[in-house]
């Protein structure tokens, strides 16, 4: 039986073969199975895109046409405690341009089994959020006479987030090595050295201390625990996928960021390709439009083909084109032509635009096949 399947591995993709394997009754006869496989091959070949089909332009038209109907502005939900996310056309442009910095970086953090049940969810979320000293302080008291700064902490807030005094002391110590630290009740007292007994120095230090990093994941500015189905997950504004994946309560298989470049760096280009498809598809579905996902796959493939994300701009995908004329016909023609003339580039007229410019048959569809025959030369 397996021998038979092996034979078809050249004719069918592995997934189709595996599907057939799984769904076949145990006692099927070899002849019957062969008939099924034969029929599958015929159906499979029927579904393949024909050689010479201009898939690129069809994708462009298929995405572009509904794109004209997309609403330009996102709905803003006034008063709802939800973060505003770039959606609609601006988001699609952002993705396809391959922007390095996006308008609203976000993460969806899924949690492992005991943590995702909602117990202590707020505390877990707060521990992910980047906390600065300022946020847990209730009052700064400056004693000019003794050149001391007394930091009085809000212990309720500290308990909510789960911060202990030693952590704070350690963090202050690493940032301000020259200060003398002492703890007294719910306050930490900083004393300046003899050398720096000036008053303005006191205030400067106070302002600097406010920004000391205490705990959490850096650049995660907001957190929002939400319930999705039967489990809880955390949505964040600001991304830091690498650091989040290092936390032990995070489900590393499902947690995702919407920053494509971060995904490329942390998870690799294949993950980024999938992220492009997911993100664009999400927007299109949100707008109530219907675009076949294979068009998006083609775009994502093109953007990721070089191993890094290339936007559909003159600096990205278009730059990779081999034809001088095709590049020149897109944007900044003179730049491309001068650069080509400096190195003596040759345009082999292998693609569509160049051939339209020269009015030659474009190598797609009926223009693709040629005749192979021997021409007698005299």
């Amino acid at each position, binding site marked *: 039986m397996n021998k038979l399947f092996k034979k078809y591995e050249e004719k069918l993709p592995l997934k189709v073969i595996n599907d057939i394997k799984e769904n076949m009754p145990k006692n099927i006869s070899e002849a019957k199975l062969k008939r099924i496989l034969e029929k599958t091959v015929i159906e499979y070949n029927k579904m393949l895109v024909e050689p*010479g*089909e*201009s898939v690129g*332009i*069809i994708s*462009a*038209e298929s995405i572009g046409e509904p794109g004209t109907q997309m609403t330009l502005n996102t709905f803003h939900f006034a008063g709802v405690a939800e973060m505003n996310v770039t959606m609609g056309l601006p988001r699609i442009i952002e993705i396809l341009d391959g922007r390095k910095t996006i308008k609203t970086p976000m993460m969806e953090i899924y949690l492992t089994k005991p943590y995702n049940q909602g117990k202590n969810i707020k505390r877990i979320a707060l521990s992910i959020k980047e906390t600065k000293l300022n946020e847990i302080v209730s009052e700064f008291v400056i004693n000019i006479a003794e050149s001391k700064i007394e930091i009085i902490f809000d212990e309720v807030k500290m308990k909510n987030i789960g911060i202990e005094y030693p952590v704070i002391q350690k963090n202050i110590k690493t940032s301000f090595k020259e200060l003398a630290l002492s703890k007294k009740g719910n306050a930490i007292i900083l004393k300046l050295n003899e050398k720096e007994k000036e008053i303005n120095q006191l205030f400067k230090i106070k302002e600097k201390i406010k920004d000391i990093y205490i705990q959490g994941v850096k650049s995660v500015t907001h957190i929002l625990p939400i319930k999705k189905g039967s489990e809880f997950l955390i949505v964040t504004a600001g991304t830091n996928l690498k650091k989040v994946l290092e936390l032990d309560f995070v489900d590393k298989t499902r947690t995702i960021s919407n920053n494509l470049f971060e995904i490329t760096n942390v998870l690799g280009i294949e993950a980024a390709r999938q992220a492009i498809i997911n993100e664009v598809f999400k927007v299109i579905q949100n707008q109530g439009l219907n675009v076949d996902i294979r068009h998006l796959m083609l775009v994502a493939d093109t953007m990721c083909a070089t191993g890094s994300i290339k936007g559909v701009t003159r600096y990205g995908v278009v730059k990779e084109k081999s034809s001088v004329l095709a590049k020149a016909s897109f944007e900044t023609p*003179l730049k491309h*032509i*001068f650069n080509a*003339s400096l190195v003596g580039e*040759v345009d082999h007229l292998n693609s*569509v635009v160049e051939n*339209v*410019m*020269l*009015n*030659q*048959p*474009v*190598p*797609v*569809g*009926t*223009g*693709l096949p040629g*005749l192979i*025959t021997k*021409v007698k030369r005299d």
Partner: protein
Amino acid sequence: MNELYLNGKFIGKVENPSEFTEKVREARRNGVIPDNLNIYYDKRVEDIQINDNKGRLRRPLIVVKDGQPTLTEDNIKKLQKNEILFSDLIKQGVIEYLDAAEEENAFIAFSREELTKEHTHLEITPLAMVGLCTSLVPYANFSPGARISIGSKNQKQALGMYAINFPIRIDMDVNILHYPQIPLVQSIMHEVSNYNKHPSGQNMVVAVMSYKGYNVDDAVILNKASIDRGLGRSTYYRPTIAEELRYSSGLTDEISIPDKDIKGYKSERDYRLLEGDGIIFPEANVIEGDVIIGKTSPPRFLSSMDQYNLAPSSRRESSVALKHGEEGVIDFVLITESSEGNRLVQVKIRDQRIPELGDKFTSRHGQKGVVGLIVDQADMPFTASGITPDLLFSPHGIPSRMTISHLIELIAGKTGALSSRYIDGTLFDVEPEKKLRRELLSLGFRENGVETMYNGITGEQLEAKIYIGNIYYMKLKHMVANKIHARARGPIQLLTRQPTEGRAKEGGLRLGEMEKDTFVAHGVSLLLKERFDADGTVIPICESCGMVAVHDKFRNKLYCPICGDNVEINFIEISYAFKLLLDELKSLTVHPKLILKNKY
């Protein structure tokens, strides 16, 4: 302290703003200061704006004092007897014009009944809220504002009689409607503005129904018999002008029948309609290409010798001929002098325009549409009393646009036609629909305006009762005859060798970038090539330097201006625009080298 501004410039401060503004207004009403001055006190920012400059939209209102309008019965009587004028009322301070700013300070009563002590002004009539064109829409207060605006805009494009001396006027693009009618459903403004002296539409019998689907998407269907009787018939006038220009060399143009040996002589046939003076005669039937005014000009560039040797053969032809697709009858010839003292000839051409498929018609309610089908009267549906409609209007145009006034006009028009009187549809002051219905009933018709109708082709009774009545329809100036355009072959541009653009130049219809993409998407490569072949050329290329070579056809020799004649030169077939691109690259000091390869 409140700041005082005159036309936006700071001029001083005022201590008691309310008292100050009241004083200014009182002075204006008493004629102490000009009546085109407006004052506005803004309580929020505590400043006073006085404006008497141009460009402010102002409207007249009756001044109210202590809850009583200053306009008295006596005033009205005198006005009616023409003893005083409207301008006298302004001088008396009874009526004043407010601009948008001063209106903010005013409290304006809609009608006399709702006047209270607080009111400062009273509307002369609610109709004064809208402009002239909008006030010509009957029953306008029953339709959405957007539709009323569209309706009033459409009326400006309607054909009528723009001036009664039109036969002796020379204007561009003039249309005159042949049998204009006074609208059956009117507003007071039709009488006031003298619209009834030069109406621009016709009262048509309209049935609201579909007919074989030829009135979908806002199309209308016309009755052939009605058109034959003159419905929607108009005349289009267009002048052609020729001037005997003087040139700096002392030479002049000459209006005459050109000699045969002149440069650019057309054919004898083209000049056949010209009389001895080189000008066409009135009532001549002309078609495209016919010369209307024969004219010759001196040569464009004179060398020093030519001045003394002016053979007529060096003059060139510059006659005015009818352009592609134009035809008509010569209506009027005018020979006069231009402001520079040159002889000036103006010829007016007339063309009768009978309604045809695609001509645009509209009612006064923003319900415009083009003619979708012209039906013989025999095939038109008819009522029990034998009436066939002039126009069929699709009911699908109503629900989304909500033009109720269009529907009411139909009933009002029907009542007016049957009782031989005009119906008043003045905005906010209309004859009530209920009254119309009662009257219609008493005239022996169904009060809701529907009638039993019969299929004109089979004679069968139509299952539904059809809403039928009279609506004032107008023919708009957008006529197919002025717009129709197609081309197979024709003129090309000198520079690019591509077809010219636009109807006037008999141009091609552009297949643009996105249209090209659809060809590529379909994979119809060779069709695309054929479509873009309009500027295809065959040029010789030197295989050594890759540039365009020379083909000397007289000696049948090929050579390259750079490499000489000892190189291989081959012909290639490309679009001329690409050759142009190569030339432009050369001018940018880029050497575009063509490398030839055998295709097979």
